[in-house]
């Protein structure tokens, strides 16, 4: 029990209940820092609950109950961390907590069942999950809300059973249980009438997968507001599709203008893209750090946060940039001091495929238990291009590029060049000897490469560990099952001993 990593036996904290036995001792300075951040998150949530509309919403919507597990969620993602990594994690997760509270606050403000602010609702454009938001950079007077993120996506991440009810509702309605649980849960939520009915219009996109696209079409029947279907090309690497993507963006902008009476503001758009480019520049620096012997901003400290600012932030919220700067500074400090992210670094891994929403803290476990550094994950490896800050025609192409390359979509669509070939390129760049291959049971796009991955990994001498999961449905493969697949490989193939034996097998099925 002390300042050093692995000095606490973390598996002993789990005793079969929702909560853990006690908070982790990380040495005086880190424990105090962590504790104050824990209090700060409570403060943000308490402030949120003090608004009458939010209080109403809390009792109106089933999914709001999941947010009670937020402090545990942050604890899960900081487990075992020390020094700069702990601070980076808090910078990211605490800001996400604040941001989600604001988003839900906006939802409830506009929601007739809670705040009932009709005027505000008329300024809200509803976007679907996984969708990039850069189009809204040109509409400073409008609010963009990614409808499913606070309602389905985040609850399933915060609480492992967060959306099981909605999945069951969709399946009872007749949806096959073999489709991806994410659009299934979203559909269940729509069938259950558990989405706030807000907004003047909506934009749906052919996002990550066939299921997601189809779910949107059915859900649109429930929302009853004018909806634009943004169909950006699937084969996004082909030069010949770019023009169509840009045309669709123009159509979408025209639709929003017609529905809201607003005009696309190019000055504001370019201002936001400057911020977005600055964020991209910092992200590139993080990646460069991760290629060295002393990576600093890795695993959980990239994954969810990258989703948030690349997709939802989109350059409109300059607070992300400020946060990024502070994170980068912490990263460089750690690098200069040659701080390691695990007590002993045994393997450098790229995480490929789609992560389990109910176990986004899995990469931390890899570090703490086996000394596997989760350098980067597939969902974070989105576009790192710089986009135009002054050319309008180029901007249409840029927006199309971003929508085509939204999180996950840029790898699950576009062919084996981006789904398979790029993996080996990243392994080389990051000097990875291991790939943690998430096999999400409902994801057809990645499952279709199963044999190819196996064969090509063998050819390259890379350790490929399959980790099967059910994305938002832990009943299909629990957190323990996921760990079991790594444990088996580490024991049977590599014949290694864990850094923390208590983390090899512990009871967290009932944990939040």
């Amino acid at each position: 029990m002390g300042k050093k990593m692995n000095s606490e036996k973390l598996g002993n904290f789990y005793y079969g209940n929702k909560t853990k036995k006690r908070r982790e001792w990380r040495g005086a300075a880190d424990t105090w820092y962590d504790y104050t951040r824990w209090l700060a998150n409570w403060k943000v949530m308490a402030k949120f609950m003090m608004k009458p509309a939010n209080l109403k919403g809390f009792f109106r919507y089933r999914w709001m109950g999941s947010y009670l597990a937020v402090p545990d969620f942050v604890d899960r993602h900081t487990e075992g961390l020390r020094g700069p990594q702990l601070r980076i994690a808090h910078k990211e997760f605490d800001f996400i907590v604040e941001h989600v509270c604001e988003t839900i606050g906006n939802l409830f403000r506009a929601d007739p069942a809670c705040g009932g602010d009709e005027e505000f609702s008329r300024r809200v454009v509803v976007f679907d999950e996984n969708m990039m938001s850069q189009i809204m950079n040109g509409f400073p007077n409008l609010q963009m809300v990614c409808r499913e993120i606070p309602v389905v996506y985040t609850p399933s991440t915060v609480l492992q059973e967060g959306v099981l009810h909605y999945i069951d509702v969709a399946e009872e309605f007749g949806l096959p249980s073999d489709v991806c649980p994410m659009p299934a849960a979203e559909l269940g939520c729509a069938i259950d009438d558990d989405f706030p009915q807000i907004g003047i219009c909506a934009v749906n996109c052919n996002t990550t997968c066939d299921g997601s696209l189809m779910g949107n079409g059915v859900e649109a029947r429930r929302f009853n507001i004018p909806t634009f279907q943004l169909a950006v090309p699937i084969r996004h690497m082909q030069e010949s599709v770019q023009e169509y993507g840009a045309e669709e963006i123009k159509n979408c902008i025209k639709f929003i203008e017609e529905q809201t009476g607003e005009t696309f503001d190019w000055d504001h758009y370019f201002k936001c893209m400057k911020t977005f480019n600055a964020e991209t520049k910092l992200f590139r620096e993080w990646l460069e750090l991760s290629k060295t012997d002393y990576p600093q901003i890795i695993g959980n400290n990239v994954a969810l946060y990258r989703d948030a600012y690349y997709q939802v932030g989109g350059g409109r919220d300059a607070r992300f940039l400020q946060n990024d700067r502070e994170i980068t500074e912490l990263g460089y400090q750690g690098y200069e001091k040659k701080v390691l992210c695990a007590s002993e670094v045994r393997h450098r891994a790229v995480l490929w495929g789609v992560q389990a929403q109910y176990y986004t803290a899995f990469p931390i476990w890899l570090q703490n238990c086996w000394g596997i550094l989760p350098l980067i994950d597939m969902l974070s490896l989105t576009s790192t291009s710089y986009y135009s800050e002054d050319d309008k025609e180029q901007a249409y192409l840029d927006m199309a590029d971003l929508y085509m390359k939204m999180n996950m979509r840029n790898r699950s669509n576009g062919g084996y060049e981006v789904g398979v070939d790029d993996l080996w390129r990243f392994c080389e760049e990051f000097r990875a000897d291991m790939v943690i291959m998430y096999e999400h049971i409902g994801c057809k796009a990645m499952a279709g490469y199963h044999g190819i991955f196996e064969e090509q990994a063998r050819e390259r001498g890379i350790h490929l560990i399959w980790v099967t999961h059910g994305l938002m449905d832990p009943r299909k493969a629990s957190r323990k099952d996921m760990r079991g697949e790594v444990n088996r490989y580490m024991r049977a193939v590599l014949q290694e001993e864990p850094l923390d034996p208590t983390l090899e097998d512990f009871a967290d099925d009932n944990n939040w």
Partner: protein
Amino acid sequence: MKDLKHLYYLENLLTEANNDLVRQAQEEGRLAVGNVCSLIPEVLLDLPGCFSVRLRAPRTGSMEVGTYYMTSLLCEFCRALVERAMEGGYEFLDCIMAPDACAAMNRAVENMELLKTCNKEKFFITYSDVPMKSDETALKHYVKQMRIRVLEPLNEVYGIDVSDEALRKAVEQHNGVSKLIRELGEYRKEESPRITGYEFHVFCLATYVCPKDLLIPILEDTLKQVKRRRPDEKSPFRARVVLAGSEIDDLDFIKLIEENGAMVVADRHCFGSFPGRDEIKLNDEEDMLTQICRHYMTAGQCPRYMNTDKINERKDYVDQLAKEYKADGIIYEQMKFCDYWGYERMAASYIMEHEYGYPVLSVDRPYVVGTSGQLRTRVQAFVEGLEIKKIHRRQ
């Protein structure tokens, strides 16, 4: 009813992807162009000098290899194609024109490419980005994609004539075959029909997987025979159904439905006559490729089309078919693990029942269904339900 003269021949023919008529056409010097989805306009692959072969894997048994490469979570049709490709079953192809339509099919074709399953010297595969909406912007994109991913490669690699004149000829051939198929299908409207859904499916399916010109004499002869054919005095069927859904190239599936008393009077699926055997109407003003693409885009009933108009149109379309062919009910089917049809089947089953008032049987199925006792039971129960409804209506 007397047996149809060419039925047995075609049934046998359909047990092979590389069938007698395909071989005959190749011996005549024509190219076999593999096709995996109706989103690539078939007529573009039926230009003079080549012919389209819609890929299927008849007599599929084990899918172990396909499952290794694509896991057990992808649709069996796609896995069966990969399995067949690995066995060398598509070696005869000169190229494959694939759309990036559904993820599973796209992966199937990519596996075929990466695993080098076709080894002809000039063999190639192209992947097209095909529209997900039906509007003028999408049409422009569609035309561009078909030009650079289908016509230009055919011309550059094999010297195929892709002029407007050649396209017009291909359309004429398509229209000729479609007219014959539709005329045959019309006989399913009769109370005691002169052609069963199964028989019709055999002829219709053949038009997707054989060179069309070689089939025309068979279809003409069959049409004459059906015109003269005396139907049974009393229809052997207890109910009439529209069959709607995804890929059905397994003859046994429709046989199973009909054996259990439900005649398939209309076929809205990827190997069916609706909308695949619609006539393509051409004018002299617009360029040929645009007209062809517009036809496929507007007539297309694939659930992949995501715009609201198309989503609603799909239900109206099935409703129109049910009315025209006097169906008592609708069977919605999907290949298990198909995301597109999983959602479409769920929504359509509910909407057609609750908003349009049809009894609906909603099933998901494996690729090969012939011996499925479970499916048999479900069809039997559905037919009984339809009969009871009829009795209630009479009372």
